[in-house]
């Protein structure tokens, strides 16, 4: 097991190398010039040249890559062309917002998704089943920006129950330790901020949770249906076990592997930032950061973020694979 994890982590290095080469080439092959973006519509040629020199944009691409790689190996992903801030620092600065949001969203999605999926499977072809599946279909196909705006319109503008966006209300003080506001407010025993930050999280995490929730529900349903048809379930029923015990004790355990895979992948994706959700709910997370960077041809940021995201995805996959061992003792890694 330990060997397997080390091997997977060693593979990470190659994945990152590959990812960095591809993004480096792709970003530079795209039309557009960061110098023009920086210097504006009527920039003088001297100014453009000065900027290109400053950011090594005139060097051959492989040289630029080697310079970047050397720095990256020292843990320095460079500075943003646009804001002159260290990319690593900016990513770390924005990560807590995204992390908090995605964790909330994935918890909501997992709980509701699995419950809905099980109910659906147990009562196959009933009205409940159809209802859940139609709901799931809506969930995956509903545009997040529309859903987000509707949630705000109903729960903030019309009912006035929850805030429109942001992370904390104006005037509420919070001593920031981890950047995860819910955790920070618990650590500092600041209950006003605790309630406020949770109130701010509800709408965006519901909006963000819909798609994974729907996927999880569908996956749970199909996986459960498959398991419920298997021989050992029939045996257990024949042994006289209650239906509840059959479903919640035995069937679920065997159905869990594909569900965990879906959850793992979705967690990875969510941590990469949710551009639309973050934009609509005015959350200063990673999604918005990378979207702005792409629009501004901010090479170092795009580069740094892609690496970060690749790492998260690889780790999320690894974590899922390790979880398999605990769920299904028959699985062994060598």
């Amino acid at each position, binding site marked *: 097991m330990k060997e397997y994890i080390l091997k997977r982590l060693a593979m990470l290095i190659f994945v990152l190398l590959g990812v960095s080469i591809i993004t480096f080439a792709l970003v530079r092959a795209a039309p557009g010039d*960061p110098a023009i973006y920086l210097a504006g519509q009527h920039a*003088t*040629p001297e100014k453009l040249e000065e900027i290109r020199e400053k950011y090594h944009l005139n060097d051959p691409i492989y040289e630029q890559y080697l310079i970047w790689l050397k720095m990256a190996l020292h843990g320095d992903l460079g500075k943003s062309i646009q804001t*002159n801030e260290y990319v690593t620092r900016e990513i770390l600065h924005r990560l807590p917002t995204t992390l908090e949001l995605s964790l909330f969203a994935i918890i909501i999605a997992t709980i509701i998704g699995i419950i809905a999926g099980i109910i659906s499977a147990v009562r196959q072809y009933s009205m409940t089943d159809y209802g859940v599946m139609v709901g799931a279909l809506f969930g995956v196909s509903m545009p997040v920006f529309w859903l987000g705006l509707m949630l*705000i319109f109903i729960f903030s503008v019309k009912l006035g129950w929850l*805030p429109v966006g942001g992370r904390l209300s*104006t005037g509420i003080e919070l001593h920031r330790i981890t950047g995860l506001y819910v955790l920070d407010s618990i650590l500092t025993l600041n209950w006003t901020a605790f309630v406020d930050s949770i109130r701010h999280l509800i709408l965006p995490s519901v909006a963000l949770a819909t798609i994974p929730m729907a996927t999880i529900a569908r996956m749970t349903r199909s996986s459960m249906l498959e398991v419920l048809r298997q021989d050992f379930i029939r045996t257990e029923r024949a042994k006289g076990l209650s239906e509840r015990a059959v479903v919640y004790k035995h069937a679920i355990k065997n159905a869990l592997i594909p569900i965990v895979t879906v959850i793992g992948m979705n967690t990875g994706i969510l941590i990469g930032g949710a551009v639309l959700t973050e934009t609509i709910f005015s959350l200063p997370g990673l999604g918005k950061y990378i979207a702005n960077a792409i629009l501004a041809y901010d090479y170092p940021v795009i580069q740094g973020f892609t690496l970060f995201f690749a790492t998260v995805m690889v780790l999320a996959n690894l974590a899922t694979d390790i979880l398999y061992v605990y769920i299904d003792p028959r699985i062994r890694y060598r």
Partner: protein
Amino acid sequence: MKKEWKWMGLLIVAIMLASVLSGCIGGEKETPTTTEAKGKYGGTLVFGSSGDAVKLDPADVTDGESIQRMDNIHEGLVRYKAGSTEIEPCLATSWEISDDKKTITFHLRKGVKFHHGFGEMTADDVVFSFARQYDENNWFHQYGDWDYWGWMFTDIEKVEKIDDYTVAIHMKKPNASIMTSLAMFTVSVVSEKAAKQYKENFFKNPVGTGPFEFVEWVKDDHITLRAFEDYWGGRAYLDELIFKVIPDPSARLMALQTGEVQGIEHLDPSQLDIVRNDPNLQLISQPGMNVGYIALNCGEAYEDKNGNGRWDPGEDVTPPGAFEPFKDIRVRRAIAHAINKEAIVKNLYKGAATVAKEGMPPVLFGYNDEIQDYEYDPEKAKQLLAEAGYPDGFEVTLWHMGSTSRPYFPVPTQIAEAIQADLAKVGIKVKLFTEDWGAYLKDASAGKAPMIMLGWTGDNGDPDNFLNVLYSQRVCNIPNAGNYGFKKNPELQELLDKALETYDQAERAELYKEANKLIVEDCAFIFIAHADQNLAFSKNVHGYVIHPTSRKFFYPVWIEKEE
């Protein structure tokens, strides 16, 4: 006896009445003013901005979001009068212009304090604020890109300290627009002492002399400012001014409706009626300082081989996008007559714009009211085309901005399609082309587009910043052109040059009026619209004056408290 009593009674009544009346009048005079003044103070205004600031160093930013924060922290030697682009004294109380028009001497206001206890502002801070931008040997020069200096201030040779309260700006050549430029954020005065303390992090810790001082910046979330108690002009009414980032326009409006913010910017045209009809909100609009145009490539470019910044004989070249029919003025005018600008403004700007007839907005001095626009008349257009030898029209490619929305062209693709349809009616077949914004600007400057949609938002509120930047023959230089019509007009250039040497505003205005006439007559540009700038506030926010440059000054703003 009875009579006496009667008189006594009357007297007493009269005295009582008089005292009551005088008391009342006195009360009316005294109490409301004091309560009014008292009532104006206090409160927090949260303003919903569409994006976060990039940097908080006034000399090193180009984006509106950074500027709107800094305009409340910093000030310059001069400033705009409220709601106008005329200038008035600010950190300088007066100034003199030398006989050769090349030196301007400023007398500084005494006793002006920097925020956060960084001491009194003196000539050293003023010189530092300028020199760090142009002087490569200045210790702070390495920390910035100083873009706006390159665009607007290169005529300044150096800034010199005469004594603690006097500085002189020496110019390379006379430039009358410099006075307006000095009201720009770029040349705001910053504390040298603070710069020394923060060095490369100065842009995160701004220290100026303005009405609000910096408190906190949570990236992509909010920036908090607080009233500066020692402000030389008297404390601001607001206690706190917070700029909160709300990127989505619908979410911004909803935040205003729920009262989470008290003001928002960049309203969608479709939201204007919602704000107008909401009794708790108010809409503030004004024609913006911008112009959206279509440039017709007339093919008269030059290549600045000797690098002197002007066209010399022998430098002529034809830009790659030169389009033969546009060389004929009748064709250009036909296109002007064929486009229904009124309909575009009404339907695509949702009325939130003014139809443009000149190359600069009407809010600037030098705008020529007498100019007649080319009226919408497809028949006349057809006739002109026939006269020019194109009775059946021709095919041409219109470059448009695609998904890159700018204030002057809020929905570029739809506007391009409207123009395409208008021109089809007179027999001109228009193909649409777009590319990524960066590539678009680069190719436009290289003269690759035969017909291109672009625009400009003014920097300093000076006509020169429109006419010389967009229509001068000097900027027909490929591959770095700014005049995408590529039409050289020496007579126009002469007027523009003369205007720059004229410090008298009335005289300058006359020269620009003439220049505007020539630009419209040449018709290398078809001016579509000047988009309005719109802001929405809660009903209880008072005192906000919209500024033509879109800059946002919150000093006079106050919030009416609920009783």
